[in-house]
């Protein structure tokens, strides 16, 4: 069971490291070949990518299903100065020989001597400070960070609103209202009113002149005056015997509404 876990972990680690290697390769390529065209954001992108991948690598290592790799020991079993095809293939031609020179470099676990020195220095410094002093330092660091964050966010907000003020006028609310009014009830559209009149004349006013010539004349045509003739044709629709076509319309509308129900 533990072996299975180990295997899985190793596979995950290998894939993560492969990804990391690829991004490093592309970054190096970018730096070497496109250095005159390179922009800072692009470099930042590459760094961000690398940092993300390192993060995932760390997560994999910290994962609960990962066995304690610390407890594992790697021992080279066979060292030979002969070329080894297998290793060549695995490392893409970078390590041709698994020999005495190569092994100490590749299998080392201790950091570089300089790094080791620095680490030792830091550890002794840290041990020297009293806990109170340490706490104070931590607090001041936190305060400085939050101040800086505040300043940045304020700056961002202000510049955004400044930009907005310039670009804001993509629409005009008065126009919106005017257009909606025009579509809804013809404010400013009707030819009866002089163009540009701001008066809110009710569009439903009768007698304000027929748009269609003879419309009022036609309205007076009593549809009821020849109901007898029309009766057979309008089967199913009882003709209202009213003098106004309005009632006929009302009846029609009632039919429509009834259909709607």
């Amino acid at each position: 069971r533990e072996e299975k876990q180990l295997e899985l972990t190793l596979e995950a680690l290998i894939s993560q490291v492969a990804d990391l290697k690829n991004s490093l390769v592309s970054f190096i390529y970018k730096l070497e070949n496109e250095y005159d065209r390179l922009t800072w954001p692009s470099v930042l992108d590459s760094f961000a990518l690398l940092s993300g991948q390192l993060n995932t690598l760390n997560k994999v290592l910290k994962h609960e299903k990962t066995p304690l790799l610390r407890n594992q020991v790697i021992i080279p079993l066979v060292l030979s100065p002969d070329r080894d095809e297998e290793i060549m293939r695995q490392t893409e031609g970078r390590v041709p020989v698994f020999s005495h020179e190569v092994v100490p470099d590749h299998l080392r676990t201790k950091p570089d001597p300089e790094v080791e020195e620095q680490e030792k220095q830091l550890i002794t410094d840290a041990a020297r400070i009293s806990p109170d002093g340490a706490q104070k330092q931590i607090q001041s660091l936190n305060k400085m960070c939050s101040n800086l964050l505040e300043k940045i966010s304020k700056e961002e907000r202000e510049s955004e609103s400044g930009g907005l003020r310039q670009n804001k006028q993509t629409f005009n609310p008065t126009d919106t209202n005017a257009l909606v009014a025009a579509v809804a009830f013809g404010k400013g559209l009707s030819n009866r009113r002089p163009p540009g009149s701001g008066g809110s004349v009710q569009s439903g006013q009768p007698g304000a002149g027929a748009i269609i010539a003879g419309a009022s004349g036609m309205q007076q045509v009593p549809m009821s005056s020849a109901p007898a003739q029309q009766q057979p044709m309008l089967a199913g629709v009882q003709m209202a015997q009213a003098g106004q076509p309005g009632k006929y319309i009302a009846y029609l509308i009632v039919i429509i509404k009834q259909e709607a129900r």
Partner: protein
Amino acid sequence: MEAPPVTMMPVTGGTINMMEYLLQGKAGGQRGAGGGWGAAELCVSGTGSVLDQSLESLLHRLRGLCDNMEPETFLDHEMVFLLKGQQASPFVLRARRSMDKAAVPWHLRYLGQPEVGDKNRHALVRNCVDIATSDNLTDFLVEMGFRMDHEFVAKGHVFRKGIMKIVVYKIFRILMPGNTESIEPLSLSYLVELNVVAPAGQDVVSDDMRNFAEQLKPLVHLEKIDPKRLM
């Protein structure tokens, strides 16, 4: 009375056809809400406007957000007919015809009063009835006693996203009645309308609309505008 009444025979012929068409049209025009005319359709809408100079960016954004790479343009002539009845408020019917597409039927629409519902609802909800008609619609309406109240020409683009329809158009005033060639723009802005026609009782729709409106936010501010408030 001197002038003879307008001949009634052809009119009645027309009337019957129109009526049948009317009833047929209703069944046909339904959005598949289970046959019949049962479910009241609701037109849910949000409105805003955009200035001419920002039109291009709005169209760009809509092209990205909506389905279909090819936005449709349209040029319509809309006439609004009123019938003054015994009731105080006139009955309004809107007739639209396409000026650039030849074989398209005329479109008759009835829009009810905005539904007084949840104040928090972000869209205007109105009952609506849409009917496709033949092209003797204006004559029919006039004979029935409707009078044309106003007309305008709308020219713009239509976008769709699922069941939502976004229309961006410019309204032109017609300078001489009946002559759709002499037109002038009503304002320097384009009207933007987001509407959905849905069977009654679907409030989920208005949430979708609000999300979409959010995406158009800095360019256009789509909101619920009650036309009665602007009277």
